[in-house]
């Protein structure tokens, strides 16, 4: 699902991004969070950031820019949760998720690669972010380095360690 697109000449609108790149955003967010509730939270957070940040967007690798915002938002949320307890308003006990997939539908959507997704979720957040940016988004180590603000050597190390942890989990499934 690697998608590298040529430079856009015209900056997209927020609606363009939600309509044309929403599925890409949703996929990256789902690979990072591993469940639909958190994915929907994250995507909405990302689109809010995109909406505010579009004025500063320089046409270029749009998917790279979106994945950067998604990963930063994901890591922000993870650190925020670690730093202080959730202060959200209480959830509505009878809330209805509009358009949320039913259990069967959800299973259909992700059953095939579920073991891969489950394995991804065992990784520490920083490793998972690097692996997702490399293998799901398709960024180079240099691009990941720039987007995460860490040296290329750190990216290399996180991807190596991340895949090392995945190997025993995925190899076992693959052999079956």
């Amino acid at each position, binding site marked *: *699902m690697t998608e590298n697109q040529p430079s856009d000449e015209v900056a997209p609108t*927020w*609606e363009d991004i*939600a*309509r044309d790149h929403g*599925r*890409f955003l*949703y*996929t990256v967010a789902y*690979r990072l969070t591993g469940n639909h*509730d958190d*994915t*929907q*939270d994250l*995507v*909405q*957070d990302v*689109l*809010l*950031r*995109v909406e505010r*940040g579009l004025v500063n967007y320089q046409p270029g690798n749009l998917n790279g820019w979106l994945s950067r*915002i998604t990963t*930063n938002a994901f*890591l*922000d949320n993870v*650190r*925020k949760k670690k*730093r*202080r307890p*959730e*202060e*959200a*308003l*209480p*959830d*509505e006990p009878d*809330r*209805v998720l*509009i*358009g*949320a997939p039913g259990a069967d539908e959800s299973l259909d*959507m*992700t059953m*095939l690669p579920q073991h*891969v*997704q489950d394995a991804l979720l065992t990784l520490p957040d920083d490793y998972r972010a690097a*692996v997702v940016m490399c*293998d*799901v988004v398709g960024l180079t*180590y240099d691009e990941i380095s720039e987007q*995460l*603000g860490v040296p290329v050597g750190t990216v*290399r190390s996180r*991807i*190596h360690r991340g*895949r090392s942890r*995945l*190997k025993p989990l*995925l190899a076992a499934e693959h052999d079956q």
Partner: protein
Amino acid sequence: MSDQLHPQELLDAYLDGELDASEQARVDAALADSPSLAAELAERAVVRAQLRDLPMVDPPDGFFEAMLERGTADPAAVLPPNVASLSGARVAKGSRRSLGSHLSRAVAVAAVFLLVLGFGSGFSAIERVPALDAFANRHAEALEAMAAGEPDGASTDEFHPMPMDEVKDLGPATMDMMGAYENDDKVLQLIYADGDGGMISVFRQDGFVKSDDMPEAETMEMAGDEAWHLQQGDFDTLVVDRDGITYTLMGSLSSGPAMESLASDLPETESGWLDRVRNTSRGLLETIGLR
């Protein structure tokens, strides 16, 4: 550095085509000599392929359509103005899952209730976005005054000078505190110079960082705390959140001719600036006890 790595540690970068020629040759040679390393490479290739074969994930029906219909990703946009003015993140958190007007109304009612009663510790923590535009203007103003050798000129109607002996010097030994100022919002600005044309302003204010409004900032960890790096105008900017206090560091390291000369010699100018700011920031953080 990578010359010291065992070829096994280079296998993933090898698969990704991310090794330089000498590293690649070293791995090739090791693979030719070691069947176990070749087997390891094959296993890693399987893992990599499984990750890359993951399919796209479809959002639930109507997920994006609801936002498009609303014309914004911000759930607060459908709330009454007095509620929308509350922290967007908190209001959004409760309503963001459904995107439905039914839940938004429920959240709105709950929020108004809490607002009227002044109830609920969840709203007590201040969360703010540093006023980066204003800080950048202020830093530029101070820079100009310092460059002209007139530190007193950095005083303005907004930022009043503080007696230097009443302010704790936060800086490292390698930097001199040139001035301390405070505005009516109790934002403290300390100005440091490295004697080599580089200047840094440290803005200190109460409150957690609300990073949602810094979408392009790179998130990083600094001394175990959250930090965000971004370019604000001409200045490298680092925002650090520590126990409810926000420190915004702005580096004007490119301001002096000496620093420009140094920058032009750096192989990677951008990361050079960032490293410089980071290193200086580490010193500051160490001195003020954040490390």
